[in-house]
């Protein structure tokens, strides 16, 4: 994938039929993490770092929010990196192949990240957050900032996109839980190291499971570093209509879909977010079990076993 051409202003194709969202590429990074590249030229042109999409796999599916991990304006595609944690994301893992289509793909949604004001930026991605932090790192670099990338994985064989991060980061710190590559420990170890070596950091961007974003916010709080986090709570429409994605930020209630998804990490009530993410835990588990019993879910038992080994918190689906 090449970097987007920010200046290329081709006229919007108005006669395009927006119902055929073809998957043009798929890669599997691990037994639970996979990448889908979907054709949507209009969205590739409109997307900005920090935005997300709502995906529906089929007519009977649910609408799930997924952060845009990359977009390619010349190829006219957007990239989603998905972790199979719930029924829908596992079903997508089984049925989404190159050449198949998604039932619905709406976006880009949410306010784009503010890029350009900071001269030295740390971009932290943990688990599922590694992919969505990439476009932010690239945009900060293109805006002339000095970018320090910190990415966290469980072990060396789960590492992906190292080359892409190396291409857009001035420094890259890889953290693994088992120490098989880079620093041993989670991303806060890397973040502490970056803060210790650079006194002039303007901004920290942290994306990942809520517990990791909370840890990052607590790490930067004593240093008074501006810390932006990207929240991905449970949503239905993604347009502000349902209010299901409301989060406590400071003293107020914000809707992540239209007021966010980026918020000041020092203001976000992560405990509230984590409780709200479990709103439908029982129904989700029941739906997954029902699905596992059908023929479509034959291999799901194997996936469940691997997921139980310690996947990060679910993001929406």
């Amino acid at each position, binding site marked *: 994938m090449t970097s987007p051409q920010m200046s290329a202003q081709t006229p919007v194709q108005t006669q395009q039929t*927006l119902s055929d969202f073809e998957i043009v590429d798929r890669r599997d990074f691990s037994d639970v993490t996979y990448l889908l590249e979907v054709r949507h030229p209009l*969205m590739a042109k409109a997307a900005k770092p920090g935005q997300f999409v709502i995906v529906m796999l089929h007519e009977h599916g*649910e609408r799930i929010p997924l952060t845009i991990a990359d977009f390619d304006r010349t190829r006219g595609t957007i990239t989603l990196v998905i972790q199979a944690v719930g029924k829908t994301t596992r079903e997508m893992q089984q049925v989404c192949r190159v050449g198949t289509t998604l039932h*619905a793909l709406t976006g880009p949604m949410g306010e784009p990240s503010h890029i350009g004001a900071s001269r030295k930026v740390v971009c932290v991605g943990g688990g599922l957050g590694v992919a969505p932090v990439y476009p932010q790192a690239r945009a900060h670099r293109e805006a002339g900032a000095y970018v320090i990338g910190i990415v966290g994985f469980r072990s060396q064989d789960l590492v992906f996109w190292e080359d892409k991060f190396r291409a857009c980061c001035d420094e890259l710190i890889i953290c693994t839980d088992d120490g098989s590559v880079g620093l041993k420990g989670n991303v806060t170890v890397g973040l502490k190291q970056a803060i210790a070596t650079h006194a002039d950091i303007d901004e920290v961007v942290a994306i990942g499971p809520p517990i990791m974003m909370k840890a990052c916010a607590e790490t930067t709080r004593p240093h008074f570093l501006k810390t932006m986090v990207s929240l991905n709570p449970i949503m239905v429409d993604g347009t*502000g209509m349902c209010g299901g994605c409301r989060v406590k930020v400071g003293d107020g*209630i914000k809707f992540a879909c239209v007021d966010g998804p980026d918020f000041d990490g020092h203001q976000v009530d992560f405990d509230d977010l984590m409780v*709200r993410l479990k*709103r439908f835990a029982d129904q989700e588990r029941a739906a997954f079990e029902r699905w596992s019993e059908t023929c479509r879910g034959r291999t799901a038992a194997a996936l469940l076993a691997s997921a139980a080994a310690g996947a990060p918190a679910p993001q929406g689906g």
Partner: protein
Amino acid sequence: MAKKKTIKTIPRERAHVEEQNPTLRARNFDEVTFCLSPEQAQIETDRCIECPNPGCVKGCPVGVDIRGFVARLAAGDIRGAYEVITETNLLPAVCGRVCPQEHQCEGACVVGKAKGLAPVAIGRLERFVGDTAIANGWTNIPYIEPSGYRVGIVGSGPAGMACAADMAKAGCDVTVYEAFHVPGGVLRYGIPDFRLPNSVIDAEIANLEKLGVKFECNVLVGRLFTIEQMIGEMGFDAVFIGTGAGYPTFPGIPGDNLNGVLSANELLTRCNMMRAKDGGFDTPLPIGTRVAVIGAGNTAMDALRVCKRLGAAEVRCIYRRSRAEAPARVEEVHHAEEEGIDFQWLTAPVEVLDDGKGNVRALRCIRMELGAPDASGRRSPVPIAGSEYEFDCDLVVVAIGTNANPIIGQTSRIKLDKRGYIATDADLATSIPGVYAGGDIVTGAATVIKAMGAGRRAARSMKRYLGLRDTDAVYRPAPSWRERAFGLDPEERNAVRVRVS
């Protein structure tokens, strides 16, 4: 000519209309009120005295020629009645079901003003005509001369649909953009099947498609492309914004962020549009056994009755004013009461109590009494000191209104008013030339028919802006004072005109 009907000779009682048994219907999502049979419709049309100065037409936000269509119906010409309605109202099957007729046409009906008489059931007659049209596949498609103009409509709800129909009839190439994966807007996500079946919405949308209107779903205007891009590089000659007021308000009481507190919009969207109530659909649905719904508008009634149908044992309505002030349609409140909803009038929520695990355990409320009238003319509720009480519940649904959806404001330079709604002039023109707006995104939350009225007004302005003749304006000249003199009806063809000269 048949003997003139008078207020004394018409049937005194409204035609009986079948309804599902309340205990039975509280367990299913089938429609509550059945359509009038042709015989019942005949009885009801007999109740219309075809008065010379019909209040009903003035009471209708879009000015449907009600007397005209009822007269056709009385003559047994249902197709003719359909054509009279569709001159002004594209969606008779929808409006006959969801309009608050008691505040509009039926509220102004001359028959209803007589002592002891109910007004003519105009809504039910309209629905009878609309349903008959759907059943027979009727459409009222005029000859359309292409004008060469392209019009973009943002939002496929009632405002957008009404505007799209008028612009398509004026020969424009109309594209409607919808952010959801199916068109219909609030008709689709907000109004449950027992009040407005999906098949009715599908039929009305199919009618629009027959007019040449194109629907593009999965398009979030503002984010995928902006309003400025639409009238710029995308080449639309005019744009209508009808995005609605979808941004639910929460009461701002302690505990309103707990799991188990959700907006009526969310509940209804999951249940109606995502069809979570049906088997085989993936969207999760919060199901309560003891439910409290805050608010008493139409959305609140829908939420109450949906929860009942989903199997809740107790469903309470919490409203801080009394039944008389409730904004819901009278029929909906009546149906909800029949279905066993527990209405707690003059009660305000104070706090949502949790179970220690982030879920709802109970709701604490306070009793109210009505004080002096406020700015809206309604008597404002005042809390009664020491009257707080709490009851157990596991689901709290909030239906206390909505705010302006911020997306268009965030993504364009269009001028907004102080509350965040789109600012327009009297012709519904916005601050951007060629861009019009109407419906809830201009007025704040209102009704389906008001949104449709706004869509049509905007269409009229757009046609003026584009220099198109207003092809669908129905020519009905107001009678001059001379013709009104001596109580003569100028439209009575065989009346002898008396000239004062």
